[in-house]
């Protein structure tokens, strides 16, 4: 039985007091405990940013990599060992900015992992520039006249690319978030959970209070996430009402299934066959 203590870690947390990341961390731990995954069976891969520091703040195997590249690394790890249970922590800049191309292609591959995007709609670690998800008009030290690009609609893009599981969480609702993460981790294939995460230091627009007034829980309203058209429509809903919960779910073969990797066991476990190779070499 895995308990929450298994996930406690003495490494000093480096987030700002009051940051929305703390609830995400708590929901993650809660999910892992409920799913009974021991730390040594969990691999968390992250990019660079405040979000990407997450795995340091609990106990697990971790690869804290490069800005934008977590999904590519995770894809490679899966090729080597498709039995790995992988969670990816990423920021909105990390995943939708620098990592935009990998985001699209990990979805297209349907790599079996759970991607948690800590969407604070700002570049936190580099001290407050606009991110791809920043609201239009947001003013920063470099976007001095306000952001002029439409916020990146990750849910819609993910759906356009045929994603099998897409959800939105809110770090102000730990219980729901934990449920989403659990559902995501049980799902076979690529899972995107975009998490609305207030940044108390740099985002004075999308605050806890701002979200609290707007978010609602799709599942509480009885929505079943099996209609693609409805999911697309929901992905565009933003403003007075912001949907959270599972937006779309449809299972299909995952990447390592599609490439037929699964049948012979993980590559990492296979054996080098000198005889066979020498035979080939000698035949040339």
């Amino acid at each position, binding site marked *: 039985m895995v308990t929450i203590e298994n996930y406690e870690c003495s490494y000093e947390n480096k987030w700002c007091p009051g940051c929305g990341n703390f609830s995400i961390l708590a929901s993650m731990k809660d999910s892992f405990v409920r799913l009974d995954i021991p730390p040594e069976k969990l691999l968390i891969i992250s990019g660079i940013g405040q979000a990407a520091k997450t795995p340091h703040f609990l106990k697990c195997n971790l690869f*804290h990599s490069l800005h934008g590249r977590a999904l590519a690394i995770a894809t*490679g790890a899966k090729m080597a060992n498709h039995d790995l249970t992988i969670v990816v922590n990423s920021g909105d800049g990390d995943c939708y900015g620098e990592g935009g191309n990998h985001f699209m*292609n990990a979805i297209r591959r349907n790599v079996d992992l759970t991607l948690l995007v800590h969407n604070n709609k700002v570049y936190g670690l580099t001290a407050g520039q606009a991110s791809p998800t920043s609201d239009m008009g947001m003013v920063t030290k470099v976007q001095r006249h306000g952001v002029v690009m439409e916020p990146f609609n990750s849910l819609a893009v993910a759906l356009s690319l045929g994603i099998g599981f897409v959800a939105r969480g809110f770090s102000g609702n730990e219980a729901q978030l934990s449920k989403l993460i659990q559902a995501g981790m049980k799902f076979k294939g690529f899972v995107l959970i975009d998490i609305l995460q207030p940044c108390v230091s740099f985002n004075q627009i999308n605050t806890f209070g701002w979200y609290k007034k707007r978010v609602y829980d799709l599942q509480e309203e009885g929505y079943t996430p099996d209609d693609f058209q409805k999911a697309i429509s929901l992905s565009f809903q933003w403003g007075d009402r912001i949907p959270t919960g599972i937006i779309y779910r449809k299972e299909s073969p995952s990447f390592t299934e599609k490439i037929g990797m699964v049948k012979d066991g993980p590559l990492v476990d296979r054996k080098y066959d000198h005889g066979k190779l020498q035979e080939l070499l000698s035949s040339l």
Partner: protein
Amino acid sequence: MAVDITVKIGGEAGQGIQTVGDLLTLVCHKAGLYVMAINDFESRIRGGKSFFQIRISDKPVYAPHHRVNLLVALNQRTYDSYKDELVPGGISMMDVKGEPEENQLPVPINDLAVKAGKKITANTVAAGACLGLLGAPFELFESILKDRFEGKGGDALEMNLSAARLGYDSVKDAKFPWSFTWQFGDPKGSVLNGSKAIALGALAGDCRVAAFYPMSPATGIMVNLSSLSDDFPLFVEQAEDEIAAINMVIGASFAGVRAMTSTSGGGFCLMTEGLGLAGMTETPIVVVNAQRPGPATGLPTRTAQGDLMFVINASQDEFLRFVFAPGTPSEAFEMTERAFHLADKYQVPAIVLTDQTLNDSLYITERPLSAPREIERYVVGDDQIDSPSEYRRYAITSSGISPRALPCSGKALVLVSGNEHSEDGHISEAITDRMNMVDKRNAKTPAMLEEMRPPERYHAESELLLVGWGSSKGPIRESVDRLREDGISAGCVHIADIWPFRADLVQKALSSCKSFFVVEQNSTAQLGRLIREQTGLVAEGSVLKYDGRPFFPDEIVRGIKAYLD
């Protein structure tokens, strides 16, 4: 009489020039001969000018020859472009409309092909005619065609046999001065280009994951690897870009398998950040950089040696890496295998630096290749760790090498960070951790240097030494033979194990000569710069070529003689 004949087959892209070349090569192989054949083509799929230039010899051969004995011109343009390369008495075999020139041997290649059954057998006709001229026994060709077409179904075999025969017979009255008797015993080594050699070397290095983005002249490696992936525990993935490719490779290696990528030019640029990640996280990876002329897109299908200083210094700040620059397919095989082994052993990235000449040229090696009996892996499991629950991925050791456990393979938690870190893998900004980690990573230097093999020396006691690296090995060596024939005391030194740099060994290799010259395919003599940087020795001069075409021994001889005059 020694055999040394150059056949050049030229035409448009899409005419199947390479098929003619492949067939000739296979016949030569079967006959116990050697070949070295360069592949010249434009960055386009149809049309334009391309050729396959095969040098046939009864001795191992590693350089192309600049003069042609037999020109197979699949169109008029080929004849016009290359007729001046013919040696005196050399002939051009081709479809001739009207009165043939003196050096033309008219063969109605296309008509014969149609007669054989289909226009596309023109290549076989041409190969047949070539072999006829060279005096090869028809049975040899026949058996190659059988190997190739038997079981292909339809009338492919029959049609090709008939095309071959028609071509062969069409020249039976022609006189070709270099016709010879085909009796050289059993096949010698293997028929290989560099791409295939690297792919096989990767298998011999137990590569399990390869990720790449298509890029000439590196793609061939992946095409070869891919064709092997059904029979070996190996997965080849085409990534969305080079950045993804190298990071996939890092992920795969981190998760426990040996992994590689291959690329060229701009693709390598895009991988430099990942290279640094491998350096910082001490994740073994192998990267093949197949050089082509740049900068930017440059000449995509041509050859160069312009990336030496770049690969040695690529990525911000400092970390150790291996750089190997093989000179022949056998070396490419062996060094790729060794790159996997050493990357794994030292937990560093290893770069195999090749070029279009090596990758795309066809060679018959001296010996068959051989695979290692076993693969020594440098990873630890819980049973080899004193206290798995206290495992620290970056434990300080005197060798600089920390025991490497794999994630999710036991109780040991594996924490890896591209940020500077403490021994346990957590981010650390502490001065001591930073110093310890830089020192730990650098501490691998002496042992890595020990792994580097001495430069290969040839007539090394000579007064004048030619120094090169990578694919120009063959041409340089042959130019040495020619210089010596002309009474010049010349030798050469080939540096293939290039980084970390064995200054002591290079110093030694160069210390006894009166002067040395670097011979390179770039415009600034990068090896010269490197040798000076590392040993203080200054080259007397350099023979540089940067037109995108492979070195011919003759050019090197001329380059050196220009200095001597």
